[in-house]
């Protein structure tokens, strides 16, 4: 097992280097200098002051040198300072917003699993039934639905028309004065719509995948064997077939992480949730390059870690992977 993990880590190393190169390249595509925004806004900035500013961000050095400086700092999680007026370290700005983004994504992942797996299994077991046909249509519609539009519609319905759910932020204004239980309920109410919508994006794909997995497993010889020795249909499906059909889902979960993280930009912006996605959007609008580069990097590293966790859990669940 340890050997397997070491092998995966070794495979990840070049990817990590590639990620740093792409992050760095993206940020240096920019025509002109990132400090232009600060200096051009200020007519009194002299040529020397501009040079000093450039030197402060190491922009006067050759590219490979800048890359090396940047990577060395990355190694100790020093992502530089924000260009915005608070000039705070980028790492701090991201870290304080990361928990809410991770919380949202984990909750929606749980919701996706809880809904998509039963749908996939049931439509495979009752192939071509009304339920199967209905869910197939829903899956197609789900694939084509822009989730931010669905967000708008649900905000209109539950927020504006019915007034059941809040449509912005994660806390009410009077949050601090609420007793603990009410405060918790307040948080839940704010999270319902964002989590539901973020889960919606992944539902169609996973239930479709689960269905085809299950269909494939049901046709295997050992299922016929299980039936032949007189096991109840229930035991055949939920004990023998389901377990094997669930295995590849681990990989799919790993693969769905970049989509979820990317989607957090949209949901956090729509619902005004102070997470990493919203910070990313605001930094893009403000051209706060160090923050943009930092989040781009963190997003890719989170994906890499998610894939590692998926690979390792697959190996734990399925011994065949470890051996080959």
């Amino acid at each position, binding site marked *: 097992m340890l050997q397997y993990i070491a092998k995966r880590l070794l495979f990840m190393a*070049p*990817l990590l280097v*590639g*990620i740093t190169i*792409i992050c760095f390249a*993206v*940020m240096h*595509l*920019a025509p002109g200098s990132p400090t232009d925004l600060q200096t051009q806004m200020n007519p009194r900035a002299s040529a020397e002051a501009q040079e000093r500013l450039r030197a402060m961000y190491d922009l006067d050095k050759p590219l490979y040198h800048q890359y090396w400086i940047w990577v060395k700092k990355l190694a100790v999680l020093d992502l530089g300072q924000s260009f915005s007026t608070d000039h705070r370290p980028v790492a701090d700005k991201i870290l304080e917003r990361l928990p809410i983004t991770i919380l949202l994504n984990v909750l929606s992942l749980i919701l996706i699993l809880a809904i998509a797996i039963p749908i996939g299994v049931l439509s495979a077991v009752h192939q071509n039934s009304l339920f199967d046909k209905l869910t197939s249509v829903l899956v*197609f*519609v789900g*694939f*084509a*639905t*822009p989730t*931010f*539009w*669905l967000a*708008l*519609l649900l*905000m*209109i319905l539950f*927020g*504006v028309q019915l007034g059941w759910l809040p*449509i912005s932020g994660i806390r009410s204004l009077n949050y601090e004065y609420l007793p603990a239980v009410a405060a918790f309920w307040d948080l839940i109410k704010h999270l319902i719509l964002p989590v539901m919508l973020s889960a919606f994006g992944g539902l169609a794909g996973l239930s479709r995948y689960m269905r085809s997995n299950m269909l494939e497993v049901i046709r295997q010889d050992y299922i016929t064997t299980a039936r032949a020795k007189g096991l109840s249909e229930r035991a055949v499906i939920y004990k023998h077939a389901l377990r094997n059909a669930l295995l590849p889902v681990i990989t799919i979960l790993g693969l769905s992480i*970049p*989509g979820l*993280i*990317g*989607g957090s*930009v*949209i949901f956090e*912006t*729509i619902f005004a949730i102070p997470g990493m996605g919203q910070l*990313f*959007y605001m*930094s*893009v*609008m403000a*051209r706060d*390059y160090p923050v*943009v*580069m930092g*989040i*781009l990097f963190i*997003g*890719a590293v989170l*994906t*890499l870690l998610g*894939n590692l966790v998926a690979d390792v859990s697959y190996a734990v669940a399925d011994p065949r992977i470890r051996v080959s």
Partner: protein
Amino acid sequence: MESDFWKRFLQNKMAVAGSLVVLLLFAVSLLAPWIAPYDPSMIDLTQVLAAPSSAHPFGTDQLGRDVLSRMIWGARISLKVGFVATGIAILLGAILGAVSGYYGRWVDAVIMRFVDVMLCFPTFFLILAVIAILEPSIWNIMIIIGLTGWMGITRLVRADFISLKERDFVLAARVIGASDLRIIFIHILPNAMASILVAATLGVAGAILTESALSFLGIGVQPPTPSWGNILTAGKDNIDIAWWLSLYPGMAILITVLGYNLLGEGIRDSLDPRLR
């Protein structure tokens, strides 16, 4: 073979429905100047945020512009973005995949690691980061969506090439002295066209979804140019008073993407019924 394809395709109701939607969109985009009831940029301050009526079937926006007319012109933008972005992705994906699958060894290793690295990035993050630098404009959007969407096609074309290059017709071409370039583009690539076509159709749908999300966030197609995404931005700004600004453009996106997806799946199923 060809007639089999059409027979199967025409029997597939979903595929036919998808192609009708796509054809309708082409027609609407082409005929936009003639079928739009109003000038899409005509501001009428006496009709600000008017609810749907017989004069304005889909209502008006915050500047009194006719939403239906803006959506008809917006169809052009979607079509343009979908095709140009996918074109770029296909071009890159086909070339990289072909080279990777044909030459194998270190060329393949380098290209495939590059694909792995690109897939580590949440695509939406990558797109936003580049937009932060390049200014949002319709051309930049199309190029960026294309440049971040070629990885899947590369893997697909590579897989096709790996199995195709072992076939006898490739050996025959090599025996008569055809160059590598000729073998790749004249002999093998046409055989990989089927899977590329399917990927392209599904790619157009994806590009349209991405463009609408970007325009919705205000970093895609910039007003006053109408796009389905940026009408929805106005919908969000007026969420408590003008539901029609949110409802109709989103439905247009949904139907369009659904159409392309059904068409793509239909083509796939008709090309090779065993894949179903």
